């Protein structure tokens, strides 16, 4: 059973295979969306093209993966806090020395390349959360310790919001998934979803009608569940929270949100038609994906993405190329591969012998899930435009490297599990 000692012997073949398939597909799509018309241009693998640079990023990412597999598995748990502090400092540094690109300080220039610390902060936070939760049993620890766990994602969220980069900050809410697995209250998550729904509805419905409906539902709940202990108390608490939420949304919408953010929300909720301005990206992206049809137009045959109709087509909107050129079949394949990867990670996480490895696995699954969920939903108009990359597909070295590191630390932890006595 034990194949202790072999470096690659215990590596999970499925994860590594899916990883290479996704990275290869990603590159092919970046190539397609940035190469232009092939007959006219010579394919140029130098650093002057996006697909040429992506090749370099891939090589570096593979090297990172290889190094991670070589190091001692103990190292990650031991150094997790150090790594976490290091990357938090980097997030502070980017606010000071960062390059300002379209209104946000998200990049640090290193030579001719720029790195995005927010991308790397994800695996650092995952390591720290795993370490802390493995040392403190969530179900049994004190409230104080519980609150400390939340601090690990909240610090990077705060720093990233200062850049500001709301999209990257949002991803840190994926840590709710490992927390839930370790005993975080399910009803709190349900309450969270309820509040999100309430926020969305408060844009669409008059706030007094909405609160009236909430009140009726709560009365109904109290009547139906009258045997449950403290049900009346809960109902009142929920109602107070609802009122506070609806009114603070109202205030925040009028006084805090920027006009372009308001536009995005209004367009998403169908309150506003605007195919020229803020709705342009989503509109064009939906046309591109929709025009792919069932079977797609064929690789390199997409026109929307090639004709620059879709902005950011090789980064945040890379899924348009998949949708247009490979159609529903291709979209299904990509979604299927991601779902397979995420579920595979969860299954492997469950077979870990250490809590650290298991929790880290859930962190990885959660981060991948959030990225895929938000990114693809955005391109098809299910979510507002939130600029976060699609793992392995979106052009960019920082995201490819951080996802690779994130995933291969887990692959290493899994391969190393037999070494733990």
């Amino acid at each position: 059973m034990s194949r202790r000692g072999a470096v690659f012997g215990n590596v999970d073949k499925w994860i590594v295979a899916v990883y290479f398939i996704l990275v290869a597909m990603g590159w092919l799509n970046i190539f397609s969306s940035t190469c232009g018309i092939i007959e006219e241009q010579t394919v140029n693998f130098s650093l002057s093209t996006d697909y040429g640079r992506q090749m370099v990023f891939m090589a570096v990412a593979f090297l990172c993966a290889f190094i991670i597999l070589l190091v001692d598995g103990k190292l990650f748990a031991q150094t997790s806090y150090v790594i976490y502090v290091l990357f938090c400092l980097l997030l502070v540094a980017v606010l000071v020395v960062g390059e300002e690109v379209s209104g946000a300080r998200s990049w640090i220039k290193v030579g001719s390349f720029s790195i995005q610390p927010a991308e790397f902060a994800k695996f650092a936070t995952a390591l720290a959360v795993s370490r802390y939760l493995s040392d403190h049993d969530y179900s049994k620890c004190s409230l104080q310790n519980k609150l400390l766990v939340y601090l690990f994602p909240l610090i990077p969220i705060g720093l990233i919001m200062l850049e500001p980069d709301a999209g990257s900050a949002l991803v840190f809410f994926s840590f709710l998934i490992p927390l839930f697995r370790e005993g975080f209250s399910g009803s709190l998550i349900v309450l969270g979803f309820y509040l999100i729904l309430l926020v969305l509805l408060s844009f669409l419905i008059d706030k007094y009608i909405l609160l009236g409906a909430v009140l009726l539902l709560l009365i109904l709940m109290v009547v139906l569940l009258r045997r449950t202990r403290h049900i009346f108390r809960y109902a009142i608490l929920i109602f107070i929270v609802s009122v506070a939420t609806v009114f603070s949304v109202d205030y925040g919408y009028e006084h805090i949100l920027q006009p372009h953010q308001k536009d995005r929300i209004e367009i998403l909720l169908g309150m506003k038609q605007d195919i020229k301005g803020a709705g342009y990206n989503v509109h064009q992206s939906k046309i591109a994906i929709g025009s792919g049809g069932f079977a797609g137009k064929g690789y390199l045959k997409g026109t929307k993405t090639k004709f620059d109709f879709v902005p950011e087509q090789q980064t945040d909107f890379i899924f348009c190329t998949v949708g247009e050129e490979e159609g529903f079949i291709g979209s299904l394949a990509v979604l299927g591969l991601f779902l397979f990867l995420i579920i595979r990670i969860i299954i492997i996480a469950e077979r870990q012998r250490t809590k650290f490895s298991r929790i880290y696995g859930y962190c990885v699954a959660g981060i991948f899930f959030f990225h895929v969920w938000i990114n693809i939903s955005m391109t098809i108009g299910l979510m507002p435009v939130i600029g976060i990359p699609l793992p392995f597909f979106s052009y960019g070295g920082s995201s490819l490297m951080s996802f690779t590191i994130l995933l291969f630390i887990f692959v290493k932890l899994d391969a190393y599990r037999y070494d733990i006595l």
Partner: protein
Amino acid sequence: MHSKVVMRKDINENRKYLIIGFISIIFLVILIKLFAIQVINKSYKTDAANNSIKEKVIYPGRGLFYDRNNNLVVCNEAVYDLLVTPNMISKKFDTTGFCKLVGVEKDVFIEKLQKCKKYSRYKSSVLFSQISKEDMGAIEEALYKYDGIEVQPRTVRKYPYSVGAHMLGDVGEVSDRFLKSHPEYKMGDYTGLSGLEKTYESYLKGEKGSKYILVDVHNVEKGHYESGQQDVAAQQGFDLILEMDINLQVYGELLMQGKKGSVVAIDPKTGGILAMVSAPSYDPNLLVGRERSKNYYLLAHDSVNVPLLNRAIMGEYPPGSSFKIFNGLYGLQVGTITPNTKYYCAGPEAKPIKCTHHHESPLAVVSAIRESCNPFFRSTFENTINSFSSPSVGLDDWAQTAKSFGFGTSFNSDISNAKNGLIPDSKYYDNIYKNKQWKSSTIRSLSIGQGEILVTPLQLANFAAAVANEGYYIDPHFVRYIITPEDTIAPYQNSIHQTKVDKKYFKYIKEGMHEVTLSGTARIYGQIEGIDICGKTGTVQNAGRNHAIFIAFAPMEDPEIAIAVVVENSGYGSVYAVPVASLMIEYYLKGEVTRTRVEKMVLETKLIQ
């Protein structure tokens, strides 16, 4: 410590199913939405040809210009741009045929195509611009053969009267530099580059509209997107009504042919500019269309005639004897002379400035104006300056009073790039004569409008208007009304400037100016039957032949036109400038010219090639 072995019993282990279930449901929702837009909903692929939505810009026509009698002075003419989408140009593209069709050399076409490629391979850009309607007819018929080429209608300016180039200005495509400071413009837009086109750009330009059109992969239009509901109509720019009388302008340019100089005519009651001629001029239609850059080059490099220079506002001349009007007024105002004060004139023997005219002596201000007597005005000027505590104080008061007539400054109106001229003051002479060693006699040339003083023809015409109004003027301006859909804006009619000379002194000066045309220096060409004209000649000495100057207004009672004429390097004001001014006045007040002999003489006077 960190590597505690996981207990097999874990109460939360079953939560993995909830998590996997939740993630699966989200993926399912995404998949359903994808299925909906990719497979079920057909609106994203109107047909198999992969339509895209393309925004087509609709360019507005610029606002039109009318003259004071509602004659259309500047209008728009349809032209066509040929756009190219470089990646649509396939190997099968018949370059030879296309070049023949459009009428260009093959290498010009290739060079232009390269430029467009550099801008974008996938977006259309202008290949050849401003093709006339006539040429377009033939091109359009054959255009279906050429994939990747499309037609974009534009409008360019047309000047039916072919006059007024300097004041109207020109329109051209925005430059890269302009774009940097004006982000509201896009490449390919037009903007006013000079004259009124530039000054009134914000009113004239209008609003661009857009049409959303479905196109297939071959850029072929397939119809309106959402049946045109998202389309925005272009809004025509606002029209301008000018103060100009276009017929007077045409006549002025005709009279000034073959001469260097300018004519400015102002309505004294409103300050409106009736005509502004700068000769030599050019047909404004030359700077429109495909020949624009070639013609512009020729005009800009004509160093002999300098046709692009607007002499009426940029030409600075000493005013010569025409400035005696001001010096007379100033003497009366300060009180060093009265209407009866007489000075002796020794004629050609007079010192230090001689008099070239033969007249009675001694004489008072009215006669002195009529005879343009140099010694009278020298004495008046020196005595007036000396009546102050020092020459400096005196000269500064003189300069302030001159400036109150609009000399030495530019007007606050829609006239751009006007020169200020120069009214020297004490500081000016302190700089020239170190240790302030200058006296009234040092600067006595100013008494006859010579020396350091410089004025523009526009300032002279405004001066004539101020005298006509007996002490005030309204800023000279071109535009009477801006016609917006909501309102009619009158931008410059209320700015009255009071001069520092009292109204009561003007009647003596006017009397003298009237006598100038009756029996004085302008008697030969300055008389029109039935109209009392007040005027003053000037003959300005300079390096070459003298500049001829004449300022005038008419009728004497209730003046309707004030005018200044400068003819460079011609000779006496009475011979070269007076007939031009009197013909203009006659044409404006009577609507026709009966003195055909004078007209013929002016038209036949050719001082330049």
